[in-house]
């Protein structure tokens, strides 16, 4: 019954991690070059929206695609224990994202009050910013726990 109602996400092969890294490394310079090209042809008049606004969609796209490829690709040695760690990383990632999104405006308002400024709703980077935070945390948390588990078990080898 669970299998009938739950969408089964198949992880990508391990090789896709490599593509994720390359997109992360080369994505931003390529997007910057595209924006420069658009500006030089007059399609974009003000490039500050790319360079100054971190939440610009163009900037986030290569980062999110790269991070998603890292998160949704299999490990070199993927088995049920690795999948268990991956599941835990996703659950804790969603949990901390909810907490962060709820607390960020409160924290920002407190800082604004202490500084004697007007309280305004802070910009948390929109949907893409939240997605980036989730993917970034999930990947780091998963890799850290996997490394720690494997290291502990390597030393215990019998």
């Amino acid at each position, binding site marked *: 019954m669970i299998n009938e109602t739950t969408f089964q996400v198949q992880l990508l092969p391990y090789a896709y991690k490599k593509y994720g890294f390359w997109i992360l490394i080369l994505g931003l310079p390529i997007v910057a070059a595209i924006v420069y090209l658009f500006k030089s042809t007059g399609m974009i008049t003000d490039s500050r929206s790319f360079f100054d606004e971190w939440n610009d969609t163009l900037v986030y796209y290569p980062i999110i695609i790269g991070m998603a490829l890292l998160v949704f690709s299999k490990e070199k040695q993927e088995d*049920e224990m*690795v999948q268990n760690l991956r599941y835990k990383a996703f659950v804790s990632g969603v949990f901390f994202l909810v907490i962060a999104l709820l607390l960020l405006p409160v924290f920002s308002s407190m800082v604004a009050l202490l500084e004697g400024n007007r309280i305004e709703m802070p910009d948390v980077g929109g949907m893409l910013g939240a997605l980036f935070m989730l993917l970034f945390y999930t990947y780091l948390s998963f890799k850290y726990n996997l490394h720690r588990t494997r290291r*502990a078990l390597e030393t*215990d080898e019998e």
Partner: protein
Amino acid sequence: MKNNIKVERAKKDLTQEQLAETLGVTRQTINAIEKNKYLPSTLLALKMSALFGVTVNELFILEEGD
């Protein structure tokens, strides 16, 4: 929960690596199960049970508080 995997593995004269290869998991996973740091899925427990020729209840023993 405790388990007798190490004992059963020794009876069959298998290394962790050999057992892992037979079951299609990593050696670290076998090590983690033997040390009660990871609880295997039902499928893996049944595969172990079939391989060692014992019941799952003989492989994995519930303790008080489980």
